[in-house]
């Protein structure tokens, strides 16, 4: 058995607010929302806002294909031509209604695990959603504390509740450092179960 590959994990809230900078050094915008595909967990792109406290949302957005790189302090793009109209990535209605923050996480056997306070992303060749940070409910035995719940490779979610396999409760992690291993072990367990 091989050791699981270490994962570079970050919270979605760490990405929001990061400046979007072109390779020529021009500040274009700031990241407003992270947009991901619910069926596969892959990041589709980012909605944008202008820099500054009283700035408004922008009418364009940054698709994942236009991202040159995500660094600790900025999201790099080749130039402004990579931006697309905001409604091509996510419509205004989706931006308003499809936010998963504060949604309830339920297991497929109907246990309420808590409310989503953040989303955990795995940064590699692509950026994927690998877990939720939730404010735990009584069901997890750590009510009120923030814990990390791993997600399977394919996140099949629709509606207002986020459904995870019941086995996810065995791989709940209390810190982000150990969460990468928990995601790997959880997904390995699901693959074993499926084969």
């Amino acid at each position, binding site marked *: 058995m091989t050791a699981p590959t270490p994962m570079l994990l970050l919270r*979605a*809230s760490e*990405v*929001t*607010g990061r400046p979007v900078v072109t390779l020529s050094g021009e500040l274009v915008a700031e*990241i*407003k*929302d*992270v*947009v*991901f*595909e*619910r*069926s596969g967990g*892959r990041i*589709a*792109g980012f*909605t944008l*806002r202008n820099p500054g*406290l*009283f*700035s408004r949302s922008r009418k364009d*957005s940054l*698709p*994942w*294909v236009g991202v040159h790189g995500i660094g600790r302090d900025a999201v790099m793009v080749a130039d402004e031509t990579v931006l*697309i109209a905001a409604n*091509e*990535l*996510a419509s205004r209605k*989706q*931006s308003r209604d*499809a*936010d*998963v*923050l504060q949604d309830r996480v339920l297991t497929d056997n109907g246990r309420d695990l808590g409310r*989503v306070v*953040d*989303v955990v992303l795995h940064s590699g060749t*692509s950026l994927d959603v690998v877990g939720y940070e939730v404010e735990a409910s009584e069901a997890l035995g750590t009510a009120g504390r923030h814990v990390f719940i791993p997600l399977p490779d394919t996140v099949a*979610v*629709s509606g207002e509740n986020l459904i995870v396999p019941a086995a996810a409760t065995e791989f709940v992690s209390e810190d982000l450092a150990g969460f990468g291993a928990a995601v790997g072990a959880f997904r390995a367990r699901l693959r074993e179960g499926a084969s």
Partner: protein
Amino acid sequence: MNADFTAAEVTPQQASRSRSRYCARRLAPKPGTAWRWVGMDWWGWVILALVIIAVLVVLAVVVQRRRRRGGVIGLSEPRRGDSR
């Protein structure tokens, strides 16, 4: 009605004084009502205005921060940004 009291006997000054007294009675604060604040010194008004401005600024900042807080949007169907 007093028959001796005719319009001809009331001088314009008397009529004006009478009207003034009538108005003063109507406008005078009734006992127990909270009219005393009207007599606030000028600096009281300045402090009140500053407090109102401060509250409005704090409200604006709170609303704006909430509006600017990023979200995580889960798309139900693939869209253009997913072509990588």
